[in-house]
């Protein structure tokens, strides 16, 4: 099965019943598969006039209680930024799939990249936190899409599946489980203010049409949901909570794989470069090379770096100029070496072996 198809199948298995989007290479197969399958499940597929409208429709649908998603790539992702901030501010659960291609601008529509890792984290204006996952196989396109919906509902936040063209367009073997457990959106308890957070800092969800009479606004709002834009303390409290509900749960959200934790030379990857590192480790078993692979990239799980107490160096191959390498560097005194690669080609195992040998 193709990665993009597996993503759509994962969404359907997770109970996603709304897709709003706009065609863009190399993500289009996600939309096409949803267009074919959603009507048969009682769901709604709508191709909007642009990506701005796509994410807007998804947010609207989410307020009716539906699991909703969109899929896009670089230019479309850029267009979505304002409404992503709106989803953050209004605490709207939604899933955005980004099959990353070479940028900036129109760049390389059909070639792989990981250049949007910071854009998904910081691309909309203001301070906020989101959750981002990165699959490195077709199997994970399926599994992590499902996980994205659970996280979106659990934390009431936009969740990004940050895949790349290689994983999106690759076809490989996949095992589909007979059933998928689901984390439900916590409803708002009656009598509680609609934006009053529970202990986990996440408010219950007041679904539209259920008589809550909730006002949802992108303006700074109080716990009633009413605009209140001139109180410095209220704004600070709201934004800090929106960030804290994600960041304080980052070790709960963390999802990663560790290979050879006693290693001195350690690769850190997410997405398709993980496959090259796995090949290096497989081909050189006596070298005891370490590998930390993130399945969740944001919120950044810095404690995972402690899994390698003997690390002398972290080697970070990415299809960008060192975006996550920079983030890793902030959290460790171990030297972090970025191994950037642009243009769409994947790091070859030989290249990584050479990089590794320079540090032995």
């Amino acid at each position: 099965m193709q990665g993009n198809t597996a993503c759509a199948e994962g969404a359907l298995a997770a109970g996603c019943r709304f897709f709003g989007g706009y065609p863009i290479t190399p993500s289009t197969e996600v939309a096409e598969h949803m267009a074919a399958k959603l009507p048969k499940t009682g769901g709604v597929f709508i191709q909007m006039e642009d990506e701005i409208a796509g994410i807007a429709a998804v947010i609207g649908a989410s307020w009716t209680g539906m699991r909703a998603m969109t899929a896009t790539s670089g230019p479309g992702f850029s267009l979505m930024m304002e409404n992503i901030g709106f989803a953050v501010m209004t605490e709207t659960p939604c899933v955005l799939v980004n099959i990353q291609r070479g940028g900036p601008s129109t760049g390389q529509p059909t070639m792989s990249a990981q250049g949007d890792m910071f854009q998904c984290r910081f691309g909309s204006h203001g301070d906020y936190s989101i959750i981002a996952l990165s699959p490195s196989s077709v199997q994970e396109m399926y599994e992590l899409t499902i996980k994205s919906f659970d996280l979106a509902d659990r934390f009431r936040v936009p969740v990004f599946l940050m895949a790349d063209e290689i994983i999106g367009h690759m076809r490989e073997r996949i095992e589909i489980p007979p059933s998928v457990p689901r984390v439900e959106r916590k409803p708002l308890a009656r009598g509680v203010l609609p934006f009053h957070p529970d202990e986990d800092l996440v408010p219950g969800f007041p679904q539209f049409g259920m008589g809550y009479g909730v006002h949802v606004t992108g303006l700074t709002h109080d716990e009633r949901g009413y605009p209140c834009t001139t109180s410095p303390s209220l704004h600070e409290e709201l934004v800090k909570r929106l960030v804290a509900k994600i960041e304080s749960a980052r070790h709960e959200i963390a999802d990663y794989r560790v290979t050879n934790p006693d290693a001195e030379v350690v690769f850190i990857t997410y997405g398709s470069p993980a496959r090259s590192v796995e090949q290096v480790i497989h081909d050189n078993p006596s070298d005891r090379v370490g590998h930390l692979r993130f399945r969740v990239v944001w919120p950044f799980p810095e404690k995972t770096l402690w899994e390698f107490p003997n690390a002398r160096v972290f080697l970070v191959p990415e299809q960008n100029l060192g975006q996550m390498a920079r983030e890793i560097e902030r959290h460790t005194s171990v030297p972090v070496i970025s191994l950037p690669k642009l243009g769409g080609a994947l790091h070859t195992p030989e290249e990584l072996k050479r990089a590794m040998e320079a540090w032995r």
Partner: protein
Amino acid sequence: MRHEVRFSGFGGQGIILSAVILGRAAVMYDGNYAVQTQVYGPEARGGASMSAVIIDDQPILYPKVTTPDIFVIMSQEGYEKYGVQAGENAVMILDSSLVHSRPRCRYVEIPATREAKQTLGRDIVANIIMLGALVKVSGVVGETAIERAILDSVPKGTESLNLKAMKLGFELAEKGNTV
């Protein structure tokens, strides 16, 4: 045993579909692992198209082909872009009706496009002839496996045409000019 198969031709010949069918045969009907990838540009028709399949009895880690041992080449441009670098130990199945160059490695000449047109009346099935020849020459997947994968993948109503093409591929490979 890892096999790397590279297909190349021009857009519209079904280069990507060929790889998808081969990968499907390996995974669904031979119980092996396979990864299928492609390089494609903006054009849906024409241009040099390339796709690849890795087949292994072990899980596949690095998903891209590095040194293909099997080439299926269906256009001169595809040969020049992706076929020239074939190593001496590789085998190449080439559509001799469209490819004029010949590699240093072992190769089999299959006039797939001509045969598709003249014998089957539809040049669209040239890629299936090539797939049949590939399987006969390399044994990279079983003959039953490729047959079932073809049936899964082709449009309804074209099954018998495609099976004829596959069998023609088997025959051409058996009597084909192996150099």
